[in-house]
Each structure stands twice: as C-alpha cells, then as structure tokens.
C-alpha cells in the first residue's frame, strides 16, 4: 500500500483505490506518517505557480457578495 501513498496525496488515486487508502492510512502508522508528510508537501506545490495579478474588479466582487446575509 505504501507505494500508493504519493498517488493518494496528489489526489490522483481512483475512487476505489482512494477509499481503500483512506482506511489503510488510518490503521497503518507508517503509512499514516508518510501520508501526512507527503500531504504537507503537496500543499506547497501551488506556491510554484507563476505570479499573475487578478483583475482589480475581483476584490470588489468578493467584498460586495459578502454583504448578502450568510446562509444559515
């Protein structure tokens, strides 16, 4: 199962494999540790994207949408 942990961390497992991995990771200490470490690593990957400025209007759109009542 350990060979699938990186696949799982990258969200690249098929549904069946992923469900199996989830159960296994909960139960296996070494895979749990590996999954945690690789999961933290995957979370850093988006920082590698090239910097792009969003259109200035986007900030206003988001703040304006937040004036609506929050769903209960």
């Amino acid at each position, binding site marked *: 199962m350990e060979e699938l942990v990186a696949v799982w961390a990258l969200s690249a497992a098929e549904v069946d494999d992923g469900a199996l991995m989830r159960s296994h990771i909960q139960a296996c200490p070494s895979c749990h540790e590996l999954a945690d470490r690789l999961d933290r690593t995957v979370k850093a*990957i988006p920082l590698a994207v090239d910097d792009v400025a969003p259109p200035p209007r986007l900030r206003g759109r988001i703040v304006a949408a*937040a004036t609506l009542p929050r769903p209960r």
Partner: protein
Amino acid sequence: MSDTDLAAELAAGNQDALAELYDRYGRLAYAVALRILGDSGRAEDVVQDAFLKLWNNANQFDIDRGSMRTWLITAVRNRSIDTMRGRGAHERQERELKPELQATGPTSDPWREVSLSLERAAVREAMDSLPLEQRQAVELAYFGGFSHREIADMTAVPLSTVKGRMRIALEKLSSYLTGRGLIDVPTRTDGGIGSGLGAERSRGR
C-alpha cells in the same frame, strides 16, 4: 493582524477582514486558478466561490488546525479541477474547513509578503530541480487533475512507473522544503491525516 485574529474577525462578520484576506492571498489564489483553468473569467469565479465559502463558514474555521492560505488554495485547486472537468459540488470529496498545515504565518504585513515571496521562490526552485518526467507526473496530477492511470495512458508508461515517479518526486520535494523549514515535520500529536481526511476524488466521467 495575524491570521488568527483575521479568522476571528471573519467569524464575527467583519467585511474588512474579508478584504484583508483577499489582499493577502487573492493574488496567489487567482494565479493557481488561472494556471489550472487557463481562462480568466472562470478563474475569477472559482476564486470568488472559494473566498465566499470561507466567509460563509468562517465560524467553523479552526485556525489551530491549519492556515487559511492552505484552506483557500486547496479549495481553489479543487474547484478549478472540478470546473475544468465538469464535475459538480456533490461529487467533491475535498478537505475544506479541515486543513492540516500548521503554519499561521508571521504577523506583520511586510514580512508576510516577503515570506510568501521567498516561499514561492523556494518551491519553484524545488520543482525546477526535479527531472522532467517526475515534475510532469506531479503537475499532471496536481494542476491537471488526472489520475495516475490517466497519466500512465497519456505518457505511455507503466502504471508502476507513474507511481514511482510521484513517490520519488514528493520525497524530493519534502526533503527540500523540510530542509528549508518551509513545511513542518509531522508529529503523532498533529491533527493531520488523522482528522479523517481523504485525498481521493470522484472521477465522474
């Protein structure tokens, strides 16, 4: 204002806090969405959706369990992939509101910006250091949303090779980033994976 204080202000419904959150992470969020979608209009929609999801659920956000940046960028990534592949929200199995990374970030704005900039440079350097085939496997999964089987088909290599490339690439990245203090070494007491989080995703195609 620290991210912890910002989270409290968001939970209290302070709209200025939402604007502050956007000023901190909106640029990165948009860059990630645009990288995945390649379309500025859809990238804007995804970023707006992610920020408003956090805003609407701010009272459930537990800053002790992870950073808002990680939550936001993960949400943007997953929504972008779903948008690109035509998947609906009901098909998602994402970890929103349950982020794991612990970093809450420095507290002063200039340092936060410098810190983020240095972090981004280090991650780029780490990615650039990977052999092309390893980097390709990681990028097709993370930014393309492809499964390892799909990547094996696309690149015409055995499934075991794709698994191996992913494993080696992530180990290298982990070592590089841990060595520079950019990701924490997990401990058994961390919430981490133990919080019942899953990384498999529906593939309803």
